[in-house]
């Protein structure tokens, strides 16, 4: 526990020292929400576009930060030999993975703190939001995507890792119903996409933030499985050097 705290402190310090990266992490979702919230270009399935967009953009922010940003940064840590150096300390792989997931969650708290007020200002209606459940969903989503990001960066060479993170991000973004409603996809793709963590996260955030009455059980099981299994596999398979 003490080593997780120590590593978490170091991760947060590094995030704070890379201010431009942090700014980008906060600004990109804001631009997405500001743009799509002001321009009527996306099909929202008959719902109010903002009720669809705000949880969707929050899900995109979680996926970007937990998977792509963390995965690429960890890839750089491999090329800088930071991971190898950490591997010579008593810090375990599991402790490193947990510390990194928690550091991402801290960034997401900041993202939510700027995104949700902007959504509200644009007209997103907050009614019947189940905040504890929403927070649990964010944690599970963070764990899922950080697990994927660390699984890739924990095994692949830095340059292949970079390509893999971006490629996977695009697939999960397009199929996950985050910005484009899943109803717009062909039937077989829409069905297959239900097994993706991006779909489960977007669905659950809409259910918990908007209280839209959609069933929670299936996406919760899907996201729970991703959120528990993938970080465990990432910790097991992580290479220090």
């Amino acid at each position, binding site marked *: 526990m003490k080593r997780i705290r120590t590593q978490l402190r170091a991760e947060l310090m590094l995030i704070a020292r890379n201010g431009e990266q942090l700014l980008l992490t906060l600004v990109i979702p804001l631009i997405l929400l500001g743009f799509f919230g002001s321009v009527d270009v996306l099909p929202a399935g008959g719902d109010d576009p903002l009720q669809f967009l705000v949880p969707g953009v929050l899900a995109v922010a979680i996926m970007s930060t937990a998977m792509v940003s963390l995965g690429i940064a960890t890839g750089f840590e491999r090329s800088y030999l930071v991971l190898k150096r950490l*591997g010579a300390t008593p810090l375990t792989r599991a402790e490193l993975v947990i510390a990194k997931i928690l550091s991402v969650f801290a960034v997401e708290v900041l993202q939510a703190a700027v995104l949700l007020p902007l959504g509200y200002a644009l007209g997103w209606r907050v009614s019947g939001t189940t905040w504890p459940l929403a927070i649990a969903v964010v944690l599970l989503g963070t764990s899922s995507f950080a697990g994927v990001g660390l699984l890739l960066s924990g095994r692949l060479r830095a340059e292949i890792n970079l390509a893999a993170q971006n490629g996977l991000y695009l697939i999960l973004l397009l199929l996950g119903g985050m910005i484009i409603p899943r109803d717009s996809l062909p039937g077989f793709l829409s069905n297959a996409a239900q097994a993706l963590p991006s779909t489960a996260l977007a669905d659950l955030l809409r259910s918990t933030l908007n209280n839209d009455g959609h069933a929670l059980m299936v996406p919760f099981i899907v996201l729970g499985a991703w959120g528990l299994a993938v970080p465990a596999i990432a910790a097991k398979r992580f290479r220090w050097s």
Partner: protein
Amino acid sequence: MSVVVENLTVQYGDLTAVDGVSFEAPAGAVTVILGPNGAGKTSTIEVCEGFRQAASGSVRVLGLDPASQHRALTQRMGVMLQGGGVYPSARVQDVLAHFCALHGKGVDAKALMERVGLTARAKGTWRRLSGGEQQRVSLALALAAQPEVAFLDEPTSGVDIEGRDVIRDIIKELSERGTTVVLASHEMAEAEKVATHAVFFKQGHVVASGEITSLLSIRKHLRFTSVDGITTADIAIAAGSPVKALGDGKYEVASESTPQMVSRITSWLSTQGYPLSGIDMGMETLEDAYRRIAGTK
């Protein structure tokens, strides 16, 4: 023995980087693994640290298998990598505090910073440090573990004279308090100043190992430097042994370097009014020994 390597082989695909090497590093001694770049030094050290799998053979560090008991070994091992190992934007003071806390041995980060002479650079980021300063931070990270065994890969590479003194002193201190130090280096003159034992690597093989004093041999001749043009027959009479001119004012007396012989030569030079600008008693340097044993020019 703190480190025992037996028939170790390391392969990268079809390339055999280390081919059936065996050697030991005694507890509390400073053992240097010497050899040119690509000789297999770093691969061997990485297996000892538990970062690389051996294709065959066995390695024991403090009685532990570095691959299967890596976590237990990290509690007792200090590692200095060959460059890198720190995030470029991290500050010196933060990095040291971080690693001292991870090792949990109660090492004070500020004292450590002072020990490696980097207190003035405490707020400097890794990317702004010179190569020598980065090496000192790397060494400090190894010390944060209060190690029983320390693996130092090219510790003085790219380090200035002042930095070399600091690093040399720290290695000696480690040895004096019983830490086994294993360092890989291709800088033989530098290694000779701190090491008590050596392992000579050549193209993935160990060609010799043991106490440095046993690896060095005494040449059967004495060399001195004076001026060109001395008649060798005259010195030979005084020395009682044949003398050969080697050029550039250097002469070689075909006799062992006894104090009596040195006395006869210096007396003769003095009475004849010749200067004496150098004397070589015939003991090999570590580099001489490596060249002789490894058969390199």
